[in-house]
């Protein structure tokens, strides 16, 4: 049952990912990308990581893609004219092939293949995925977390200064 579900979701994910590249209309590409993000969120749910799934939908499909859709709409990018792109296709296929091999080697043979550590699947199920992320983020990784938030603050202030001519 779960395998069947996984296969269906994977099919949708792959088809929508292909549509992101092949759609002529940029808005339709953006919509396909949102669908791909949804499928990724479903994977997180199947991996017992519901918090990651919710955040994936909220941040990527919700916030970031809204900005991209906005940009496309306001710049009014129209359907791009078709050009001869055969050399790009060949180059892209070669690069894609090597990336696939690289990813496969890392996943099956690399350090992430069988992760070891105190957090096993049982402990995560027992204590709760959200609770564990929260605790680690505000104890072990407090400094990186705070530095990231300052970085974001700098970016916001920078945007305000750039947008406002007179302050």
């Amino acid at each position, binding site marked *: *049952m779960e395998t069947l579900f996984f296969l269906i979701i994977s099919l949708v994910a792959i088809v929508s990912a292909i549509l992101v590249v092949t759609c002529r209309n940029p808005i339709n590409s953006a919509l396909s990308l949102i669908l791909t993000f949804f499928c990724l969120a479903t994977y997180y749910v199947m991996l017992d990581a*519901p918090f990651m799934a*919710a955040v994936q939908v909220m941040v990527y499909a*919700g916030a970031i893609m809204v900005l991209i859709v906005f940009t496309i709409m306001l710049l009014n990018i129209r359907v791009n004219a078709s050009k001869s792109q055969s050399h790009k296709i060949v180059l892209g296929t070669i690069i894609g092939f090597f990336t696939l091999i690289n990813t496969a080697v890392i996943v099956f043979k690399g350090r992430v293949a069988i992760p070891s550590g105190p957090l096993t699947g049982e402990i995560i199920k027992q204590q709760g995925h*959200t609770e564990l992320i929260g605790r680690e983020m505000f104890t072990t990784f407090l400094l990186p977390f705070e530095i990231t938030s300052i970085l974001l603050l700098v970016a916001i202030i920078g945007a305000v200064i750039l947008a406002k001519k007179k302050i």
Partner: protein
Amino acid sequence: MDIVILGLPMMYYIAMVAKVLVAFVFVLLTVAYSTYAERKIIGHMQVRLGPMRTGWHGLLQPIADGVKLFFKEEIVPAQASTFAFLIAPIIALVPAFITFAVIPFGGVIEVAGYKIPLQVASYVDVASGKVYDINVGVLYILAMSSIGVYGIVLAGWASNSKYSLLGGLRASAQMISYELSAGLAIVSVFMLSGTLSMNEIVNLQSGVGGFDWYIFKQPLAFIMFFICSIAEINRTPFDLPEAETELVSGFCTEYSSMKYAMFFMAEYANMITVCAITTTLFLGGWNGPMATTIPLLGPVYFVAKVYFLIFFCMWLRATVPRYRYDQLMHIGWKVFIPLGLLNIVATGIWNFILQ
């Protein structure tokens, strides 16, 4: 009873389908009759009668409206982006409905020896007797509400008309800014509950004879959340995206027939969902006097609270004039967000003192 499919008893599947149907039909019927109730209530508030002709006191009005919209001609503008134009009403409608999956509308009832929790996305573990639901229920709701924005943005853009585009831009700017303050208001509830599961949040409010509601502990958060939610679903007094005096009908100007009806349904379904979320987070969900001893009282209390809040929304619409756009943005960014942050700090200090 003993048939087991994929490790789960047959009753599990029957209960799931039944719960989905009940929740869906409940929302659909409430959508239909809240349009009628809105016209009737506002009519009486303005010393009019409201719809009177179709059926007894106009009771068949929603059905007549539905049939009328169904048989209208469907027009797709020549310059519209067809795919986005067709898919926009669906994107607007679906999140409004599926949010109901995580809202508990009653306690655990027992049917033929099998325990069924009255919440669509949940089940009772037979071995431990515990109720399991999505343990990030509130985040799921926030995620779905951020998906709902697309329906309106796409509708505005795909119509290829200036009124639609302006309406769509207004709507999305408004929804994104009020999502933030609504989220901040919910955070203070999390700080009291310590969990993101809707079921747990309701159970935590069952003390003091079923009246240990979070509205008494977090009155400011309740007011902020409710106002922000009304702004997020674009209802009066914050219905600037479809301000008919300025923008004809906003993002749905170019829509006709059933597609227009779908936006209409989405608006009302969103209102019901928001009222249900507010009930769950602040008004104790299905809790009330005797609700834990008599399980069937739970849904009654839940529906009563949701209907009261829907009535409150309509009351607001009849009472408060529309806001100006700069006032709306001012309230959202300069009043609600600082207040929400202050509320979080105050809740934190309070929690610290209590420990």
